[in-house]
């Protein structure tokens, strides 16, 4: 297996060469800098690729890679002016097709984005998907993502951004209190089925992350924004740790421990054969109680006692909504 690892990198490099040649042919003459910007790669990568292309070709009649069997470039332009001009072309005429998996990745990606207002024109998206299928060298892999209806809230966010005004909405924080928030929208992010708005919050006077499904009564305001996406460097992680975070020890079935991966457990220890103990950093116990009570794999908060009590209080109050003798066994669900 070890010898396969470098080959993966070479595959990427090959895909790059096969993609770069038709682009250069099409452009006729293009600066190294522009090609690098177009492919979003470093200038050095373009240079190396062009140098390789310029000495590559086919064995030809003589099987000796004679001059006419090779690509050639205008070397003076390349070396002195940083401009790429292919002066001899070999074998390649056009861009390569997508692989079955590449087409599947793009199609599933489009399906995943079906809630975006840009994707509201379902006929146009269907055309685009069929182009990807036809542009693949074999039938795309059977990977798909559920179609979602257009998200009206995202349309509102886009309108606010276009108009340069704040978005306002009711937001129920995890502590349960609802407040009217006014926000400069900066970025919309998602993780699987969960969508988030990141923006500058005028109430908190800081950048905050909001779950779209917790936003209620949204409206485009008439207040101008203070910040745009280019003014603010957003932290990479959706939720940043804060100094008053508390470290909580949770025990859970080992098979289910990956559900806690987002909470960046800093160290993991076994607890018996099938259980694992994790240390999570949490900001407050309200969200911890929600998290713990919704996870599979029988999670139990071990310490500190205050965190245990918070979960205990949450689930005790919940169970009081039900009668004493309601327990009975059931079966079913997905296979």
């Amino acid at each position: 297996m070890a010898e396969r690892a470098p080959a993966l990198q070479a595959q990427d490099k090959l895909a790059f060469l096969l993609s770069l040649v038709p682009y250069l042919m099409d452009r006729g003459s293009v600066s190294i800098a522009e090609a690098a910007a177009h492919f979003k790669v470093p200038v050095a990568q373009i240079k190396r690729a062009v140098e390789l292309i310029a000495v590559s070709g086919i064995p030809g009649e003589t099987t000796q890679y004679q001059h006419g069997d090779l690509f050639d470039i205008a070397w003076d332009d390349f070396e002195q002016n940083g401009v790429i001009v292919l002066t001899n072309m070999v074998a390649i005429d056009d861009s390569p097709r997508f692989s079955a998996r590449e087409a599947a990745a793009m199609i599933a990606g489009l399906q995943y984005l079906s809630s975006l207002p840009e994707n509201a024109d379902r006929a146009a998206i269907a055309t685009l998907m069929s182009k990807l299928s036809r542009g693949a060298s074999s039938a795309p892999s059977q990977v798909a993502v559920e179609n979602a209806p257009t998200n009206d809230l995202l349309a509102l966010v886009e309108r606010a951004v276009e108009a340069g005004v704040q978005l306002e909405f009711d937001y129920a924080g995890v502590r349960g209190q609802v407040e009217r928030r006014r926000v400069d929208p900066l970025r919309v992010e998602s993780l699987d089925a969960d969508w988030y708005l990141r923006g500058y919050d005028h109430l908190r006077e800081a950048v905050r992350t909001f779950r779209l499904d917790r936003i209620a009564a949204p409206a485009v305001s008439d207040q101008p924004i203070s910040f745009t996406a280019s003014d603010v460097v957003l932290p990479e992680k959706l939720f940043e740790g804060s100094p008053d975070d508390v470290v909580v020890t949770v025990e859970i079935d080992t098979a289910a421990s990956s559900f806690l991966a987002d909470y960046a457990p800093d160290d993991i220890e076994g607890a018996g054969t099938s259980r694992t103990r994790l240390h999570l950093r949490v900001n407050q116990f309200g969200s911890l109680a929600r998290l713990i009570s919704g996870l599979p794999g029988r999670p139990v908060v071990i310490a500190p006692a205050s965190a245990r009590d918070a979960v205990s209080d949450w689930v005790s109050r919940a169970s009081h909504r039900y009668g004493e003798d309601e327990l009975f066994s059931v079966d079913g669900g997905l296979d």
Partner: protein
Amino acid sequence: MPASRAPRVPVEERLFSLVLALLATETGLTKTEILSTVQGYRQRWTQGDNAALERQFERDKDDIRELGVPLETIEEPGDTGNNQNLRYRIPRGAYELPDDIAFSSEETALLTLAAMVWREGTLSGESRRALLKLRSLGGTAPVPELDYAPRIRSRDAAFEPLQTALDRRLVVRFDYLKPGDDAPRARRVVPYALVQFQGRWLCSAIDPETDGWRTFLLSRIVSPVAVTAETATVPPDATAERALADLEALWEAQIAVVRADPASDAETRLLKRRGTVRRLDGALTVHWSDRHLLADELASFGPEVEAVSPPEIRALVVARLAALVADHRGTADSEASRG
């Protein structure tokens, strides 16, 4: 000449040269012609034993095909079964993107975002290469005013082997733990689709013994997925589209009634759940695909909701809460580790 003394040709140069040579030939090249003349092989080719070089060629063919390059093999007429006379080539029509496929700048923008979706997933390599090919066409996309950073994760370790198996129609084996069962059960199935529904990855598969159609949640697969060498056929209608349609139908058909406190987090979020309707009496009807997943979700809302019906959903929520209460009573001790 030992391989170590041969001039070193970078891997990508060898692969690139192979693609160029096979694209340029109409009639195909034999393996000997390739190994003795193509850049990167010819430096290591000898008149004697070329076993190592031949194995290299086999791996290179796989790597190239994985990129979607249709490298084909032609048998000499009347000479079937003779490996030495097989000819290799890349037919231009099957290699090149058809002329009538072009992408507008809006389409390019959408596809760029679609590729971004996978940047942390199993398909990150595929989407990165798809983007290269898209950019090869020279089109540019307008810079969107609102910054989007969408992400799908396929964190489940089962994703990759299941996709390999479904692309090659292979039988897989894994242990599957249904909630409420004491122990996992060994399963042997032919996967035909991987779908994400309500944020969770599922694998649709056919049980070759019973011909039964099954859907598995990847998060409930508790062993590594073993991909066997056994191939199997699946019916033509075993597609991802059908798998999703089946899940949609299930979601549509299954309803639970819950009471949520007014203006609570639970009410806001359940109202945004697909298909939720508020009844005249204020209770919410919510849709679901799996009773255990729904019970987990309702339990997470704690005292903000009450599961009213159907009885089995209510009972599952009660059971969950009862276990949580018992597990968090008093101080933690070794009791909590009983698993």
